[in-house]
């Protein structure tokens, strides 16, 4: 998510392809280092929709279709 733009594709690839996996890990770390939070939207077994926060690449389920990065929350006025 980017102010003034909305959704921006950062990287895409197949986690089972080593080179693409490494590129995805690198981009993931770069986003977290830039102060972003990462979340994976998913459906629960009960059919409810929710997000799962990912604090490291290992937290991303292998079958996840996408990871959404958004600016870190801060106390507002």
């Amino acid at each position, binding site marked *: 998510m980017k102010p003034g733009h*909305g959704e921006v594709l950062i990287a895409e690839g197949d986690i089972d392809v080593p080179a693409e996996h490494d590129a995805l890990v690198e981009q993931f770390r770069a986003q977290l280092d830039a102060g972003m*939070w990462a979340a994976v939207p998913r459906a629960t077994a009960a059919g409810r929709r929710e997000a799962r*926060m990912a604090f490291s690449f290992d937290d991303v389920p292998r079958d996840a279709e996408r990871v959404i990065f*958004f600016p870190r*929350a*801060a106390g507002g006025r």
Partner: protein
Amino acid sequence: MLLALSASAVVILVLLWEVAWPVAAERLERWRARRALVELDGYDPGRERRAEQRARGLLRSCVNEEEWAMYRELGFIRVWGGLAAGPERGDDFGGAPYAYLIYPHKPVIAYLPQTRRLLNEYCVAFPDETRPYGSARLPDSDDVLAKWMALTGDERRLVATANMHLPGRQIDPKQVRRDLWRLTQWEQARMRERQRGAGGVHAP
């Protein structure tokens, strides 16, 4: 006699000044705020509209059909709370469920659906200080999605990060209660529609 009248007039003027000055000062302040030049460096309304369109598409792809319809038709999303005792330490609602209302670029409101009692306002923002397109502010629907993801993904962290205030600090409690009433009406209408739809299908 003249001295007494003059003294009375002075006292009346001072009292009037005391009463009128705060009101006049507030009006003056508002007038100045209205006339103040707002810095819109790099602001492009077309770009912001396109950003909002993309953000709406992303939000729609993440939340469920009911939440999307709620946002589209009512302008907010309700998220059920997941902490056992309530959003704050020391809360005890006797097992009653609580929920949040998510508005774009406004505080998140915690409330008890059964009684419509408002609990707290959680002021939270997602500023991108790199200002990639001239602004640090996410499009409305991205702001809603960020709150939705943070609440459903890690409610405790979002509540701890936000500045908590009593209800009414930023959003008028009357407006929130009106929105809760609209939500109830909306849910009942959907339920009736579903029942009509289910009742309309008969086996031959």
